[in-house]
């Protein structure tokens, strides 16, 4: 049985003047330990879908099940990472790191120790007592990743977490996230508009179209790319092949609508 199943999700946003269909009949399933990406033009509802999976929004129609159980309220097995780090500037890195533990009421010495080891894994040892504004953008995003992983979620939702970073930092962070998620055997779902990033990081890619947001195609990343960490994958000959292919697909979607 699949780990996460999205079943026939539709969602409509209402305003005083309009009702916008953000998502229409989306169904997909993700296996445990799999890394998948959502790509598509802006307005295709990929972030909405992520919010629905995180139970931050209730869909107009359809259900999401995790390990066979329907998700209704915000689930501790789901970790969510935003576009920017959103570390709380008035809390130290350590306080930020333990925030999830505190709110979920699992603030035990063991959880704290594993959170601190995550911080070390992120190469941020020694920054515990620092405030976020003393850290660089890349370091802050790494601290945010540690904060998300600290509560030990089973599935990680990544909402364009690399888009606000400069290219070099982004490549490094992709590498680190990929390694960490493989190491801790996490399932991950990445929303991105960067085709290269999607190919380099994921096992499967879901292509969405806009107006109304819907799932168009699913691509399986060839196994030789899946094995490789993102930076090495980018160098592989079949990377550019897939890139071209996806580029054309995306391009045709954007010109038709």
């Amino acid at each position, binding site marked *: 049985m699949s780990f996460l199943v999205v079943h026939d999700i539709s969602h409509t946003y209402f305003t005083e003047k309009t009702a916008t269909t953000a998502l229409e009949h989306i169904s997909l399933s993700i296996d445990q330990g799999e890394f998948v990406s959502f790509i598509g033009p802006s307005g295709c509802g990929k972030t909405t879908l992520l919010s629905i999976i995180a139970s931050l929004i209730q869909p107009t129609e359809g259900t999401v099940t995790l390990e066979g159980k329907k998700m209704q309220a915000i689930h501790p097995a789901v970790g969510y990472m935003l576009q920017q780090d959103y570390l709380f500037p008035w809390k130290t890195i350590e306080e930020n790191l333990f925030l*999830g533990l505190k709110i979920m009421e699992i603030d035990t010495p063991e959880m704290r120790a594993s959170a601190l080891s995550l911080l070390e894994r992120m190469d941020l040892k020694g920054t515990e007592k620092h405030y976020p504004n003393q850290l660089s953008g890349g370091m802050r995003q790494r601290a945010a990743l540690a904060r998300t992983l600290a509560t030990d979620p089973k599935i990680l939702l990544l909402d364009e977490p690399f888009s606000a970073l400069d290219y070099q930092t982004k490549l490094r962070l992709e590498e680190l996230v990929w390694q960490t998620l493989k190491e801790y055997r996490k399932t991950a779902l990445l929303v991105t508009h960067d085709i290269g990033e999607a190919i380099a990081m994921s096992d499967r890619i879901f292509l969405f179209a806009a107006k109304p947001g819907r799932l168009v195609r699913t691509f399986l990343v060839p196994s030789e790319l899946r094995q490789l960490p993102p930076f090495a994958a980018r160098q592989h000959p079949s990377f550019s092949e897939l890139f071209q292919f996806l580029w054309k697909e995306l391009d045709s979607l954007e010109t038709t609508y």
Partner: protein
Amino acid sequence: MKPLTNHKPSLHDQYLASLRKEKRWVRFYQLIIFVGFFMLWEAASRYQWIDPLLFSSPSKIWSLLMGKIEDGSLFSHIGVTLFETVLGFILGTLLGTCLAALLWWFPRFSKIADPYLVILNAMPKVALGPILIVAFGPNFSSIIAMGTVISVIITTIVVYTSFREVDANYIKVLKTFGASRFQCFKEAVLPASFPAIISTLKVNVGLSWVGVIVGEFLVSKQGLGYMIIYGFQVFNFTLVLLSLLIIAVLATLMYQIVALIEKSLIKNR
């Protein structure tokens, strides 16, 4: 002397020296204005350029100050006024923040309350003075009420606005951990609004002084406001000006204390 080969530190020293020089000039002119003002005042009063009965003179104010310090009456007046102002100011800020929290907690209540807040904010609060005195009695409690009422509505409005302007993504982060509404308030909304709360504190220092002095005018029992109204009634403008100067010094001190609190509270943003 630093070795000449080491170029950079000496340039930096020059820069620092120029900064210090600039600062000294600013202080110098500030001092000139201060001393000049009092000297001019003294001279103008002595040579009758201005009416000495109305404008008094620094020397007369000084001797009155000394006399008041000797007989000890000054400190009891200052103590009373300071107590009322500090309490009014703290109560106004606390109540305003609590009201803002209520408005944030109940969005429908905030929609309903909106026009009434506008009316209350526009209304001159000192006009409530007579009612407050009758309600609380002609003593310090009505004066504190005055100091509170004058700042509470504007605090509510400013703090509530800042509550609403807190980046929704901080709340999103907390919600993904399953935080309750109270946790969202405690962990994100309130701390994110501290700068706004402190800046209303600065405004409230001034407002509370207005409320308390007007309150003391009306109650006319003790305090610096009473000294002003008493000086006015017996036509002793030296007393009026002395009270004014003391109020100016105290209000500035209070403002500086708030500024210090601000510095230590929001150093990490």
